């Protein structure tokens, strides 16, 4: 899974700028987000993919998991627009249902790692001392293994499970970056006077964490969340491609690429089309993530 090296850096000025009225902020968001063609394209792609996932049964009349051996390995024709695989299943149908698998895994894993990472990061930044040291060393260790190796280790040792094992592996792999980002963010927010004021009026640590620090540290979280979905979908596709992710007959794009590689010379679409779907989805979410970042980054206020 390629990691995105372009991260928004911790921003010292973030909390210091007085928040402008909510309405103009929202308008700015819309203007920036829909103002650039690339972001708009990304948004449309994401919208189409979500739509496809929800209305999958209406878009195709085939069953993605039912074998039809007499019709196997057909090239594209009027009945099967993209042809059929080695079990006679319609490729287009499996790609359409594959959106569901990808999105369910993508969203669940990203939410899981976000929740865990946020709590760890906030706790580390807020309590400092040995809590900080322990949590950050754990994050260091998790980051020391290449993400895909960590996921392979978990998914591989729990092999044979359904999609929730894949979600667990991917979510586990995403905790450390999230935790680091949240911690850096919270550390800079903590410097602000209103946090000291909250402490002065006797707020509990827990309350300060959630009512003062978290709301001011969450913008990069949203960006990380959107970008994270693309990364997780790539990770899921990768695991399934290696055969330790989502298992057949559940339609998974990565698994389809793997299955299709054997028939590359006769039926190239078998493995090339699902890969295209992965790319579109990841591209869409990355662009939406970029757009959200530009739209909510206070440093860019006035620039765009």
């Amino acid at each position, binding site marked *: *899974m*390629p*990691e*995105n*090296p*372009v991260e928004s850096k911790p921003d010292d000025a973030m909390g210091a700028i007085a928040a402008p009225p909510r309405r103009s902020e929202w308008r700015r968001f819309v203007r920036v987000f829909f103002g650039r063609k*690339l972001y708009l394209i990304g948004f449309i792609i994401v919208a189409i993919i979500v739509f496809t996932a929800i209305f999958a049964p209406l878009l195709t009349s085939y069953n993605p998991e039912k074998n039809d051996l007499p019709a196997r390995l057909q090239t594209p024709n009027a009945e099967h627009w993209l042809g059929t695989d080695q079990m006679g299943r319609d490729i287009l149908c499996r790609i359409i249902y594959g959106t569901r698998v990808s999105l369910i895994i993508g969203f669940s894993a990203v939410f899981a790692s976000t929740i865990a990472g946020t709590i760890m990061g906030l706790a580390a930044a807020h309590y400092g001392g040995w809590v900080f040291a322990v949590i950050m*060393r754990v994050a*260091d*260790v*998790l980051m*020391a*293994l*290449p*993400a*895909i*190796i*960590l996921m*392979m*280790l*978990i998914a*591989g*040792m*729990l*092999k044979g499970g359904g999609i929730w094992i894949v979600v667990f592996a991917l979510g586990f792999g995403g905790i450390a970056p999230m935790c680091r980002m949240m911690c850096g963010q919270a550390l800079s927010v903590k410097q602000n006077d209103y946090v000291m004021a909250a402490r002065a009026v006797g707020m509990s640590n827990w309350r300060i964490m959630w009512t003062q620090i978290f709301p001011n540290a969450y913008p990069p979280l949203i960006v990380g969340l959107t970008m994270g979905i*693309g990364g997780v979908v*790539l990770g899921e*596709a*990768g695991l399934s*491609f*290696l*055969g*330790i992710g989502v298992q057949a007959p559940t339609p998974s794009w*990565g698994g389809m*690429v*793997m299955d299709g*590689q054997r028939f*590359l*010379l006769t039926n*190239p679409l078998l*493995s*090339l089309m699902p*890969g295209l779907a*992965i*790319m579109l989805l*990841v*591209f869409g979410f*990355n*662009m939406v993530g970029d757009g959200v970042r530009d739209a909510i980054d206070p440093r860019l206020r006035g620039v765009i």
Partner: protein
Amino acid sequence: MTAYIIRRIIIGMFILILVTMLVFLLVRLLPGDPVMRYMANFTGTGQQNVMTPEQHDAMMVRLGLDRPIPVQYWDWISKIFQGDLGESLGVQQPISKLIADVLPRTAYIGFWMFVVGTFGGLFVGIYCALRRGTWLDNTLTTIANIGMTVPVFWLGILLIYFFSFKLGWFPMYGWVNPWDDFWKSCTYIVLPVASVALGGVAGMARLTRSCMLEVMRTDYVRTAWAKGLRERVIVIRHQLKNAMIPVVTSLGGTLAMILGGSVFIETVFSIPGMGRLMTTAIFDYDYQVVQASALIFGGIVIFSNLAVDIAWGWLDPRIRYG
């Protein structure tokens, strides 16, 4: 400087030891009985109860799995420091020998992926930053954005289809050792290296471009222009040197990405390297090999991060004393 290096090395060692614990615990604590799973897989029946309880216990004792986990860990780690990584269940060979066979291959293609990805990305990124807004910048930036999203394994398959099958320029898959037949081996590694390097180029180009653009807005660059320096001097001395700080710190991450990508590419192109070793071991439930290869991957990343840290502490004094 010496104090800085020593401090870095100690931190690196500490992380490495924690990684051994993580790998060990992940493999041991996840549910599942390694012996049962291994045997079920070995006999190919999928049944887990092909052994009598006595045979099963004997196997556990033979593998040392009946002892408490801390004892097992201590046993494992102390053997590692003696260069003994254990024995593979599947092929009945010392793991250190298996790894010594496959690691040079992964290191060799990894080296080329790293070189092509880093220098290609730097070149593209610098060019785009200097000529920003031109059609070539827009095209390259869009390609980089797309390049970040392409699954490595899919790109490999696509390249095989067009360059090996349609055009017949390169062999479809396989591996030739460069120390056996250098030119032949080159034809074999072009496509694998290209598939992984594209992602590297894309990421590196995006980062370089944005860092260069950030530096361009600084006061010292404006001063340099005002002084009437030549463009080349400004770009190389003033912009590039400062823009490189985040780029160089990202090199460790790039290497991790390339290692991850090589796992897929070794599967696509049937290259018998580290990634293949680990994938096959996972399929065979050969937990000793899985453990050892994950550790090797972690070790490579930790040592390269260490190297980056030391190199950069040397180049940028602010980091050394920060």
